């Protein structure tokens, strides 16, 4: 186990893609302290910014107000990062595997373009949870993100596979241009949900205002929801009994694109 304690809070962002189990697992304490971080455009050492305890482990614990520390767990493929405190941008972006747990809020681009792994956030998340960087046409591809608080705009846009669960509210453009995958939102949704989606599923338990390019199909109780609810219960998330019963209104769209996406709206 490796423990990193932030020494002081910074106003200028620090780029810390070295904080990743893939890099830490074979490093001695001295090597760990010597890893480079970028403080603005200047190089700093990990040992200058954090108090480092432990060595050679892929279990990383972080403490302190990390809201200016960017790119933690960037591209990681194994191990576990646990964070107590708020975290900055790009947490777990391009992640391939492993787990990240955060007790606090995170900034935008959590798990952006990830291809595997598990992220769970106790607080709120910023914009583009599981989203894309500008220009990419295929976003999150496998993996799971659970946010217990609220999330911002463009949750899971261009998502290709995987699961995103938001227990709080979300902003506009949730699941925009989705190619496939599943998004659960237990709170309220912003405007233009599923704009441009080709396939994929967005499940919501509150009334949602839909674009005119979504068409009502039927009201029913899909069986597959039980599988998801079972998984979420195992994660310690309580699901209301009525959600299991349904029924749900099914809309398909976005018919200005392929139109094979679905939005399921809890109807009772």
């Amino acid at each position: 186990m490796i423990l990193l304690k932030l020494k002081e809070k910074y106003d200028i962002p620090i780029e810390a893609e070295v904080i990743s189990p893939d890099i830490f697992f074979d490093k001695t304490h001295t090597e760990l302290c010597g890893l480079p971080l970028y403080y603005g455009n200047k190089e700093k050492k990990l040992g200058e910014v954090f108090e480092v305890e432990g060595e050679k482990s892929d279990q990383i614990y972080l403490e302190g107000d990390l809201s200016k520390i960017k790119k933690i767990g960037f591209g990681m493929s194994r191990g576990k990062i646990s964070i107590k405190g708020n975290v900055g941008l790009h947490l777990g972006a391009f992640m391939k595997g492993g787990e990240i747990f955060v007790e606090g809020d995170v900034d935008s681009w959590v798990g952006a373009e990830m291809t595997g792994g598990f992220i769970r956030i106790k607080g709120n998340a910023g914009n583009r949870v599981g989203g894309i960087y500008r220009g990419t046409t295929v976003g999150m591809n496998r993996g799971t993100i659970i946010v217990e608080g609220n999330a911002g705009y463009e949750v899971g846009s261009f998502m290709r596979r995987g699961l995103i669960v938001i227990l709080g509210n979300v902003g506009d453009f949730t699941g925009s241009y989705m190619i496939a995958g599943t998004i659960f939102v237990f709170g309220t949704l912003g405007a233009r949900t599923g704009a441009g989606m080709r396939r994929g599923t967005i499940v919501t338990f509150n009334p949602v205002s839909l674009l005119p390019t979504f068409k009502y199909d039927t009201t029913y109780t899909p069986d597959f929801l039980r599988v998801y609810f079972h998984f979420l219960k195992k994660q310690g998330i309580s699901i209301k009994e009525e959600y299991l019963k349904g029924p749900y209104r099914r809309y398909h769209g976005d018919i200005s694109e392929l139109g094979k996406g679905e939005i399921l709206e809890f109807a009772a």
Partner: protein
Amino acid sequence: MLKIINGEVYDPLNGINGGIKEICIRDGKIVDEVPNTAKIIDASNLVVMPGGIDIHSHISGLKVNAGRGLRPEDHRRMVIPKTRITRSGTGYTIPSTFATGYLYTKLGYTTVMEAAVPPIGARHTHEELNDTPMIDKGCYIVLGNNEFILRYLQKGEYEKARDYTAWLLNATKGYAIKIVNPGGVENWKYGQDVSGLDDKVNHFDVTPRQILTALAQINQDLHLPHGVHIHCNNLGVPGNYRTTLETLHALEGKRVHLTHVQFHSYGGENWSGFASKAPEIAEYLNQHPHATIDVGQIIFGDTTTMTADGPWQYRLHKISEKKWYNSDVELESGCGIVPYVYKEKNFVNAIQWAIGLELFLLIKNPWQVFMSTDHPNGGPFIFYPYIIRLLMDKNFRDEMTKRVHKRVLKDTVLPHITREYSLYEIAIITRAGPAKALGLTHKGHLGVGADADIVLYPKLENKEEMFERPVYVLKEGEVILQEGQILKDWTGKTIFVELPENKAFQNEIRDDFEKYYTVEFSNYPTGLETFARYESVKVSI
């Protein structure tokens, strides 16, 4: 002063084929001899060639910049950090200007021609070329759909079209005339294209055939150093080889250069019947030495296609369902950009790949066919060494042929071609040939009086590695690269033509400029103050 000794020299323009020869350099030029005090580079076990010349590449200007903007994901794929000498850069298929200069140098290329500049974008292009270090550069001016040209041709005023061209080339500091889908881009302004050489252009009573022959004639009458540089009609359309042959027939006897001919050598009536007609094109070129071509070989992988050919890019956007950029350049031209992925297992892409190689291998005279990927349309230029290996190594080619879609083995003649290029021929298609076709008399060879742009490659069995890793690159006699490390941030020259001009003619167009252009007439020409370094090629009529 510098002397390169013991090197195996390949200098096709002077007929030197692998002989050991001393090369002496003074004041940036190659000379007969230098005093004994001169610095010596021992080139034993190295191959000495003139610096590479890329006759057709898209490295700067409006559409390249728009392409950079359209594809932020492309920048993330290749990031080049700053060093003590060089500046930073990004971009895999469309590198930023500084990166472009460094990457070309690392391949041993010292001169690159930007292939399509709409006249109104000339100033922008030159500003960007100023920031493209290491290489010498020039640009071709797009004229095939220019409103003035079309209007003069409609009225049959050939002299005015000629005077306009002379004025425009001087004003934009261009090097040659480029024609892109003549008539088609003009029709695209109305959502249409032309399907052959005898279709009418909307609102002008002219045909692509007239545009082509007139501009080729103008090219001849103005004694421009390069032949007219043509991107034919119907690019990428199955069955378009007929248009290509027709274009060549129409321009018989004139100096023409057809560009990225791979994209113009397709048979079949539709995509499922897509086939190679490279043998037909090669057959024609073998009998008609008046024409030169560059190939536009495709490279499997991700790339960004960009051309002034708006209607084709719309079609490609519909085929690939990728994002699309389209632009209309006032009165002059158009532009489209679409990202594209060439796949080994896609039979159209695989046959395109085979067509490029067939063109290289079936055209007997290497002075007629030049290396290009139409960067970045066929693929990034950084893959030139890979193409060289395909041409020089039959076994490697066979291996690749077996890897791609099986219709290549069945439907093309590529597997039956046994020809392998020699180093001498490679030196022709990458250096001497382009220099000759461009009329750059002081480049592409190592004779006395030539620019001392010299590359020293290691002698390796694997030709891809050999051409990827020049040991020395010299620019005007200065060592700018050694063992893969750039030693000097060199500023190259911009090359343009200087034509005698009919001064009275300017009054003719001034009114129309003031009326229809967004730029004032007096602000339109690019002045000499724009250039960091330049070299004008004076042309006398």
